[in-house]
């Protein structure tokens, strides 16, 4: 009895916190951004060699902002922060944010709470591309982008292009067609991936680590190569928030609200797929961020895309930075394992506490 009263009180406190967050979107965004900054500093500081937050801020102020700050830290800390940790943490920010935005977009576009950035075959395409790059005895590198990254990107984009083309010619309704075609093409590509893994011999581990995702390959150049795609793509999706909102009611109703549904579907699908492809090309198939974060954010903001997308980006960034810290501290285990291990229980708790259920 007492326990249930207590949990009721907790629930009502949570509800009032959520209500306030909903009523003041600017404050909510500011709080989320602050949390992101704290997480980034944490992410840069933690690792096999810890760097104190003060030193991190000092190093950043001196080297990024050019302020005349006297160095009180060991020189090795500078290398660790600037060459290793910072590009890695910023990659986690960009990739986590991009995957969450892409996930929110796919969920809205397909009107399916189970959708994630990989649902229409991008993951299988990228994985097959990466596996082919590992298996064939060709090594190239353009600005630190090796064959794995290039073929993963191309594979993801090609997969979604094929799914889109095939789904348009069939007799099915557009959404059903997309989902079923995505599933079919994904299965086919997965067969190719299995074949490549079977043939890979000693490089199997390399393919496997791509499938699980990881940020250990991060570098400034790779970050610079993919950030524009992810940031511009996500921003372009945000500018189409109206269309995503209208699609909440279904495709025909969206059309009655003045949305050119066919066109918007193509554009949003293309943008979300590009963002996904860029993200997985450098980090592998990091799972769960794109599925969980949009749901968590919706619980606070509601389904409106204008608030959902930016906060999903911030939330995805925070989750991936934290997951990467854990992965690093546990001796470079694959980050996808961590996102699933953190994300799944958290998701379950939130779903149980949520006032409203999820219908499928």
């Amino acid at each position, binding site marked *: 009895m007492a326990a249930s009263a207590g949990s009721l009180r907790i629930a009502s406190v949570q509800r009032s916190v959520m209500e306030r967050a909903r009523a003041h979107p600017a404050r909510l965004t500011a709080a989320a951004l602050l949390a992101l900054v704290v997480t980034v500093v944490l992410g840069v500081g933690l690792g096999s060699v810890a760097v104190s937050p003060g030193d991190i801020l000092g190093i950043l102020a001196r080297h990024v902002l050019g302020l005349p700050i006297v160095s009180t830290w060991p020189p090795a800390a500078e290398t660790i922060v600037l060459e290793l940790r910072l590009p890695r943490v910023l990659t986690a920010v960009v990739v986590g944010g991009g995957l969450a935005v892409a996930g929110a977009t796919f*969920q*809205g576009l397909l*009107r*399916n*709470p189970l959708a994630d950035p990989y649902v229409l075959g991008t993951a299988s395409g990228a994985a097959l591309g990466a596996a082919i790059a590992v298996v064939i005895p060709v090594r190239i590198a353009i600005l630190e982008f090796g064959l794995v990254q290039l073929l993963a990107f191309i594979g993801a984009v090609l997969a979604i292009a094929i799914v889109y083309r095939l789904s348009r010619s069939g007799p099915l309704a557009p959404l059903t067609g997309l989902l079923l075609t995505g599933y079919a093409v994904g299965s086919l590509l997965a067969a190719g991936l299995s074949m490549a893994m079977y043939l890979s011999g000693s490089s199997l581990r390399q393919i496997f680590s791509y499938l699980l995702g990881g940020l250990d390959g991060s570098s400034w150049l790779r970050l610079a190569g993919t950030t524009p795609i992810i940031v511009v793509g996500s921003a372009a999706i945000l*500018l189409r*928030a*109206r269309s995503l*909102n*209208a699609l*909440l*009611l*279904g495709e*025909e*109703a969206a*059309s*009655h*609200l*003045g*949305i*050119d549904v066919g066109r918007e579907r193509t554009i949003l699908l293309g943008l979300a797929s590009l963002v996904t492809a860029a993200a997985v090309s450098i980090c592998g198939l990091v799972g769960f961020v794109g599925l969980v974060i949009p749901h968590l954010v*919706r*619980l606070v903001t*509601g*389904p*409106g895309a*204008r608030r959902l997308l930016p906060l999903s980006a911030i939330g995805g960034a925070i989750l991936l930075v934290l997951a990467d810290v854990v992965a690093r501290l546990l001796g470079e285990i694959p980050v996808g394992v961590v996102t699933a291990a953190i994300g799944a229980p958290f998701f379950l708790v939130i779903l149980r506490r*949520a*006032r*409203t259920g*999820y*219908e499928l």
Partner: protein
Amino acid sequence: MIDADLHPAARQWPPIVELRDVTAAYRSRPVLEGIDLAIAPGERVAIVGPNGAGKSSLLRVMSGILRPSRGSALLAGDPIELLDRRTVARRLAVVPQASTLPFATRVEELVGLGRIPHEDPFRGHRPVDRAAIAAAIDRVGVGHLLGRDARELSLGERQLVLIALAVAQDAPLILLDEPTVHLDIRHQVQVMELLVDLNRRDGATVVAVVHDLRFAAHFFGRTVVVDRAQIVADDVPGRALDADRIREVFGVDPALVRSGLPPAELEPAPI
């Protein structure tokens, strides 16, 4: 096409909706054949007919979703296929089907979707949009449902909220496809009275596919009977739904439905 003595509103010109010799097909199955129909601003029109007769297709041609294979559909004088969707959405609102929402959506968020044709594409709702949402919620009388997840509402409450969405859209023409389906009798009457009120007080033109012939007769000034892809009657309810036609089109004993109907010579239908 329109008799001078049909209905006072029908004499207004130009029509807000006009279909000229419209023939349309779904995957080569003809659903409308040679339809001529003109609806004047301020009318309240019920479309009735058996299942599969083409009623919904008629609405879909009016809203520009279904393109005629022959003939043309005009919206306030303009061919609808030449208008972009946003312009169409400012001229006509279609009350959406109560389909399942994929995510928890509050009543006010749902009604707010009606502002999509008007809102700033980038900045979202401005004060004028928020005022329109509040006005629509007040007009339809769903203020007591604010803050609730629209998916947890009863069907009757949800239907009222969806009508509020269409009211927020602020279009002179409202189309509805079977707005009272699955509702209990109290909500059915509530929805019908709301449509009459929107028509009378706000001057909205209302075109609805209605299954219950007694409702069509009681709440609408004009009845369009559709059967096998064609309009077989277009008149005041008392004449459009005479005993022979009910027997012929619907295949039921007219006494079943005409008991509540006004006599054929009475016009227009009493409210």
